[in-house]
């Protein structure tokens, strides 16, 4: 067992974790943050994307102790008690999810994209989502949702 200290969605966690425990399993089983989904468990599908140190990573392809000392953000941190985050709301408004299995990873990838590039083109959105597979929506509405967030944030910033 290893002692790890990390901050998950703003709350500090300090405790023991087994060396081979994946970050995805640690979030889901130890912290009960089950919003992070595990689809393929082989690094292919992106359902498990979270942010570590502000960067999008696949939590199924990283050990929990590798995040020691870092800040981790998951889908649970995107909404507050009352309302959805703007990316989540846009996914709902644009019908960008059907079964919702891929959605946590999509939203976390979209958040990382918009941090890096606040005004992406459709091609840049599609390129950034290359590692996030959706078996339901056909992607068009996901791209639309992300574009609408970029537009709304830009006009809010300009106002």
């Amino acid at each position, binding site marked *: 067992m290893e002692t790890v200290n990390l901050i998950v969605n703003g709350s500090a966690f300090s405790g023991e974790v*087994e060396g081979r425990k994946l970050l995805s399993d640690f979030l889901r089983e130890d912290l009960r943050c089950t919003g992070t989904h595990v689809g393929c468990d082989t690094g292919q599908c992106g359902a498990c*994307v979270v942010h570590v140190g502000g960067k999008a990573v696949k939590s199924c*392809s990283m050990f929990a102790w*590798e995040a020691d000392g870092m800040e981790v953000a998951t889908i649970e941190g995107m909404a507050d008690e009352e309302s959805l985050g703007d990316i989540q709301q846009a996914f709902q408004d644009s019908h960008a999810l059907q079964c919702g299995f891929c959605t946590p990873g999509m939203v976390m990838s979209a958040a990382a994209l918009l941090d890096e590039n606040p005004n992406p083109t459709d091609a840049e959105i599609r390129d950034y989502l290359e*590692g996030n597979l959706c078996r339901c929506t056909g992607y068009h509405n996901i791209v639309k949702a992300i574009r609408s967030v970029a537009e709304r944030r830009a006009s809010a910033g300009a106002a």
Partner: protein
Amino acid sequence: MYDFEFARPTTVSEAASALAAEGAQALGGGQTLIPSLKNRLASPSLLVILAGIDEMRGVDIDAGDSVVVGGATTHAEVASAAADSFPALAWLAGNIGDPAVRNRGTVGGSLANNDPSACYPAAALATGATIATNNRKISADDYFKGMFESALYEGELITKVRFPIPDAANYQKFEQPASRFALVGVFVARFGQEARVAVTGASENGAFRWAEAEAALSADFSSGAISDLSISADEMIRDLHGSSTYRAHLTKVLTARAVDAAS
């Protein structure tokens, strides 16, 4: 996944001593190794994590003529740090897998693994890169030994990779959309008159230099110079994604595109 111990060295020499232990293995970004641990293709008793070794991280532009990348540097860092000095290398790094893979996967892990469809081997061969380890320097031409085989000894660490910056260069990747690796990738580099052409994804023997194309392009650096050449499909990879003939065909097409884009 079997259980293991792990070590977190902060210097190359600490890492090298940890790796001398029986059953020890280095962990770079884990993008290849962690999936292999899950299906028990690898079962080290000790994992030595390289991410905390500062001397193995970062990108330096050396004397304006080489890009020197620490072995534990991520693809994302190379994509941004080399964008001005060596755009073809930055493009290659920025098109590996997807953003999450690029935020974890490292140059050292890619070269050590030497996947026959990986992108970095093509850049290393085409630029005549030097792969520095904890105890020697290996030229790219001596480094690649076939699919998943390299000149590294057990426990040897890639600490730095020096890529000379060509006068002109381009990487063409024909992506296999499911794996996001190269179905075939061709890196063309020109240093003065000398052209170098390295091909990944195509051969059963791993990345290789296409000597006939290099000779033709060194005489005349234009896509027309290779129009009469053909490359044999013998020993090319054939799988459900493409036949060996198709890979041979792509090799020539992508070489011509890379030359056009570089000139």
